[in-house]
């Protein structure tokens, strides 16, 4: 009985890793589409997002089945409930990645004139997502903690980008649409970083049993 349960848990873990890998690639492709203006990447990113949605449904069903059939307690319950929470965050990252990918078509070549800092912000967000998935795969408590701490850096970068845009708005020669697009992308990136933080928090919860309350 326990053997079967262990196997199901390991399947859940593998599925989560797979979904994490998809999400990581979705945001990576979206950011590359945005920075390099390569629209092929944008298309791919949107495709990956639909795969993420499917995976979310699959994992959700798997978790519910486990909860009903096995009635897990203690650590097992923690793993399953944190998995349920994590897929929501991963799925949101996928959605926002595909949003960025769509906006990327309209901002080709203009973003660096609007805000030179957004590139760094995008790269840092990608790194945060990568690290949060990494911390899950490796059950790395330290890495998860560093991801949570890293959120402040992305937040401050968002503030810098906002300042850049305000400066630009003050001058007369402005391209309103592109500015709004870049601002939205910045906001998406900031949200993605928040979701990455959430994932890291759930990873910590599944390891230690304590969830950080704000």
């Amino acid at each position: 009985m326990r053997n079967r349960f262990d196997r199901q848990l390991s399947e859940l873990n593998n599925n989560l890793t797979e979904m994490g890998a998809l999400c990581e690639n979705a945001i990576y492709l979206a950011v590359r589409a945005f920075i390099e203006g390569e629209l092929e990447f944008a298309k791919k990113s949107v495709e990956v997002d639909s795969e993420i949605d499917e995976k979310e449904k699959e994992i959700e069903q798997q978790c519910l089945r486990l909860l009903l059939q096995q009635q897990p307690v203690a650590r097992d319950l923690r793993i399953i409930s944190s998995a349920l929470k994590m897929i929501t965050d991963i799925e949101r990252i996928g959605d926002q990645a595909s949003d960025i990918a769509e906006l990327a078509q309209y901002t080709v070549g203009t973003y660096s004139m609007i805000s030179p800092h957004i590139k760094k912000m995008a790269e840092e967000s990608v790194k945060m997502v990568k690290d949060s998935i990494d911390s899950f795969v490796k059950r790395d408590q330290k890495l998860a903690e560093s991801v949570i701490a890293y959120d402040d850096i992305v937040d401050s970068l968002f503030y810098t980008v906002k300042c850049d845009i305000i400066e630009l708005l003050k001058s007369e020669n402005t391209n309103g649409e592109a500015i709004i697009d870049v601002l939205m992308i910045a906001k998406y990136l900031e949200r993605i970083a928040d979701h990455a933080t959430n994932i890291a928090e759930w990873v910590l919860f599944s390891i230690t049993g304590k969830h950080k309350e704000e």
Partner: protein
Amino acid sequence: MTEKMIKAITKVLVIALLFTIVLILGVLYEHFTNEQFFQLRNQLQVIEKGVVLDGKDFFDGLNINEYRITWIESDGEVIYDSKASSDTMENHMEREEFKEALESGYGQSSRNSVTLSEKTLYSAKRLPDGSVLRVSTTQLSVISLVMSMLRPIFIIALVALILSVVFARRVSKKAIEPINNINLEDPLSNDVYEELSPLLLRIDKQNQKIKAQMDDLTQKNKEITYVIENVSDGIITLDKNGKVIMSNKKAEEIFSCSEGNYYLDFCRNLDYKFAVEEAFKGNSSTCVINIDNIVYKIYASTTKSENEDISVFLFISDVTDEESAQKMRREFTANVSHELKTPLSTILGSAELIENGIVKPAEIPYFAKKIHEEAARLLNLIQDIIKLSRLDEGNLTSEFVDIELFDICKSVRESLLEKSETREISIDIICDNSKIKGIKPVINEMIYNLCDNAITYNKEKGKVVIEVKTLDDKVSLKVSDTGIGIEKSDIPHIFERFYRVDKSRSKETGGTGLGLSIVKHGAELHKAKISVESEIDKGTTIEIQFPKIM
């Protein structure tokens, strides 16, 4: 085993018992019957005396119970019988013993009773008066004797059975115990009863065979493990659930993966994921991934073997060099076509203008000069490409000979004299009598190209120094200038084909962009090392270190 033994022992016992009974009964019964007859005869003699003396009166008062006495007339009429009244008895004329006694004086016979349970023995004698005196006794018949012995026989059989069970148990235990306690590792050292020796010998032989096979397998296993572990490519095998079964050293180095990892645990690249998924579907596939700027090509394939545990096989090889070589080749082809195209378009354009009569006769020399210059440039370029491709292939016809570097430096200075004088640049040679082994035209070309560059990228009234020195185990050739210098970021690229530090001035300064590339290939051919030191606005020093002649 014990059961069989019990059966065997019991069988033997039963048979022995039966034989014994039959034998004893047969022999003893015969013996006792004879004895009985003997006694009857004695008795008969005693009674005979009495009867002869006393007649019938002898029987009065005679009290014998063991025997039956009968006195019979010669015509068979019974005169007296001790057990029954003589009147009721039938005529004994036909009795066997009677007939015999009448004839020979003595007769005897035996008869079974109707129920067969008793046997009567008769002994008869003829008296002198012709009558016959008969004495008889009864004894148990064989059958009733056997019947009476049945109980003891049964008891003996039972005891025998019990004993056979006990003995069989004990014997089989004794036989089995040493077999169970055999030391299988070293069978010949066992101290057992001798019937087991052939078994032990066979075990020993088998042991040796197994050991030889095991050694063989271990050796093969070791070899395979050694090959897999030390091969320069990464090898990973996955089970049907996507978990790592085995990974070699290189794979662990690349991915830091270990046994039991899920295949996405150590690499989450999308192309990799798709390639592995394809392999799980049964289609072999490849992908190229980049990890920390090292390019790996991964072959993922299904193992269609009977071993169901392994289902996907990953083969990871480092293709960074191949990738960059391919990139360089692509760039080179693009560059060559571009470089060839530029002078040709100028030639074509000028010639077309002249052909169509657009150019005034007075201007023709100008266009002719242009065509001449561009054609010369084209020729130079093609010559350089030919030189390079020759160096690339490495099959130069010239032999390696001893070369005095000073001679070559002098001739290079001669040939560059005109160019240097127009820019008022001095060329100094500091040279000892160093010699190297090399191909003269290639060395000449190398030094020429270095000096040519040193003049081209120098300042007016600058200086070029060629310095040749013999060091401990090598010969150093340095060409230094006081020119414009090279940016640090450009230094790694200056030996690439068609690479220009200042792309906008390439036409102005002339040259093909292949000079340093030729130097590099020449150096490789001579197993020499090149090093570059440069400072912006101060100058550049390029040093080539040739191996010393031994």
